[in-house]
């Protein structure tokens, strides 16, 4: 659709969000918890903590839950019952995860990096097999982002082909200014939220495209294509083994990443009843590639972190023409050993530049 532009005051944004909550839509926003901020359900606009740069974890779990039930079974005598959660959508509210209908879910106060992760992940979940679990959640996820003013030293969204003001993946992008916010509505879903009631529609004042504040001229500090160039040619570089001696092989970088999407399928239960589930998994675990024979093609943590870099900045781009990274910097901020992805991608980019001279 053609983008539309609006202005809305701070008071009206509060009313808008509270109306959405009152309409029985599930609203998720950055929320303070134990002195940190996480995306969580809010029951009032005032629960939202919009003063921080980024919640500690992304909202990936609303697209790919930590554990998701694919089907349940029960056996009694010669009777075998299979319960397919997808077939049961539309029952009585709740999520696909619990075998119930997925309602509309709204992320309010997302950041452009997190919003960008959805369409990037969507590619792999629809590449050959169409993953109906993911698609159902993605279809029902409405994203209202707020543009960033001041990225921190771990952010590199501009380098990762987005920007602090990017609207990629958002349904509505808000920018601070005027009497509160300027709003850019990018998708039909965004328009649907604004027009969800006559009261809501009245809160937004339509403006011309020219009246919407222009993006700043964000400059990339390094060229991510050069990072890819280095990865193309240097699989055996000693850089990886030396740099990642300090990696302890926890899954924090992958689990807090908005785009990492690996999962592990497991069966849990007894002879009488149980379920097949998929759980988050991580390429940083030694067991991730361990063969039944005992052989492991990725022996060292250097091999494993190299895989993470290869997947994000080479393989995914070759296949889907998108980097599997939105530059949010969570892997760096949350790493207990202070491994900094921005520093690494920038270093590799520079190494490629100097090799080309």
């Amino acid at each position, binding site marked *: 659709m053609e983008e539309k532009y609006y202005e809305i005051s701070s008071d009206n944004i509060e009313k808008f969000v509270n109306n959405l909550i009152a309409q029985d839509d599930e609203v998720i926003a950055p929320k303070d918890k134990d002195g940190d901020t996480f995306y969580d359900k809010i029951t009032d606009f005032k629960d939202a903590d919009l003063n921080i740069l980024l919640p500690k974890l992304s909202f990936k779990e609303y697209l790919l839950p*930590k554990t998701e039930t694919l089907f349940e079974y029960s056996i009694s005598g010669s009777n075998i019952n299979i319960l397919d959660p997808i077939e049961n959508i539309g029952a009585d509210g709740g999520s696909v995860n619990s075998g119930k209908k997925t309602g509309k879910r709204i992320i309010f106060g997302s950041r452009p990096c997190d919003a960008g992760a959805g369409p990037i992940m969507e590619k792999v979940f629809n590449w050959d097999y169409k993953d109906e679990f993911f698609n159902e959640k993605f279809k029902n996820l409405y994203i209202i982002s707020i543009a960033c003013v001041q990225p921190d*030293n771990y952010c590199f969204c501009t380098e990762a082909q987005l920007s602090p003001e990017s609207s990629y993946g958002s349904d509505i992008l808000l920018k601070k200014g005027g009497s509160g916010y300027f709003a850019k509505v990018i998708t039909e879903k965004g328009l649907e939220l604004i027009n969800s009631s006559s009261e809501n529609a009245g809160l937004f004042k339509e403006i011309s495209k020219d009246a919407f504040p222009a993006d700043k001229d964000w400059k990339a500090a390094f060229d991510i294509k050069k990072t890819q160039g280095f990865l193309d040619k240097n699989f055996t570089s000693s850089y990886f083994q030396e740099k990642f*001696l*300090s990696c302890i*092989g926890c899954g*924090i970088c992958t689990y807090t990443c908005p785009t990492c999407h690996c999962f592990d399928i497991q069966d*849990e239960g007894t002879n009488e009843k149980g379920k097949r589930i998929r*759980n988050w998994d991580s390429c940083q675990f030694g067991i991730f590639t361990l063969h039944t024979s005992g052989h492991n093609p990725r022996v060292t943590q250097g091999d494993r972190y190299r895989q993470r870099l290869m997947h994000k900045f080479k393989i995914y781009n070759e296949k889907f023409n998108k980097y599997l990274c939105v530059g949010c910097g969570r892997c760096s901020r949350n790493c*207990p050993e202070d491994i*900094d992805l921005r520093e690494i991608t920038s270093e590799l980019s520079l190494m490629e530049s100097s090799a080309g001279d």
Partner: protein
Amino acid sequence: MEKMNDKLQKTAKELLENKEVNLIIGFTKGSNPLRMRSVFITDPDDVSKLSFNAHCVQDLAVFLKKPEVKKFGKVGLIVKGCDEKAVNTLIQEYQLSRDNIKIIGVECRGVVKQNLADKGEDSVKQSTVYDKCLVCEVHTPLLYDYLVESDEPAFEINGDIKPYAKIEELDAMSVEDRNMFWQKEFEKCIKCYACRQACPLCYCTRCIVEKNTPQWIETNIEETGNAQWNMIRAYHLSGRCIGCGECERACPVNIPLMLVNEKMARDVFEKFGYKSGVDINAKPVFGTFDANDFNEFIK
């Protein structure tokens, strides 16, 4: 700090030059001025990278379990007093030979909580350091080959802050309430296993959660699986945990794991008179048998 850094660098250089060790693991400047990170040095000319300050939060003993590090053979390790107890425990449990390690102990005056440092906190005082620093008995490491003395004054403790205060609160709760507390905490768990990986004493090459014939621990990242994982992690460290607090620091969802660890350490001390990581010649508490044990079933 300058004097400390000079001595650190001089000690490391000598060890490398005299071939007493093949690798030095120490601290260096990190991704921002209030973060430090580990550094692995093999060339004596690189020792200038080494430094120490109140942001050296990591327990570098964690690297001793890495196969990539074991390949180096003799290692020189820079440790704070709390972290050094992990080295002792590894020796006690036959995971490390005393001959293969040169312990460069640093006198530590407490480290600043990383979540505060990330918000700009740079001063060492009772409200900014970890609880472990408030009860620290090992500002000078118990065992070392070289000691690097601190040139910083000790911070003041006036009793305003009660370390691990929540433990008494939990002890006073009913079983149901206590259960509810932990259920709520474990609900947050995302099973990234950072608590395990950051632990210098979680060295199993195949963790119990990775064993699936049979599957002892449920794999789901929900109520049952999370409770099972957190319980088994706790029990596998009872009588062993040295209280470095790395599991809790690493946890991306802020589960207060040190409450579990500290509670167990207190119970073990109360029941068996044992403190972990104190004496490399002591038998690990659960690796020994005593005919005078208070439990009837063991006799």
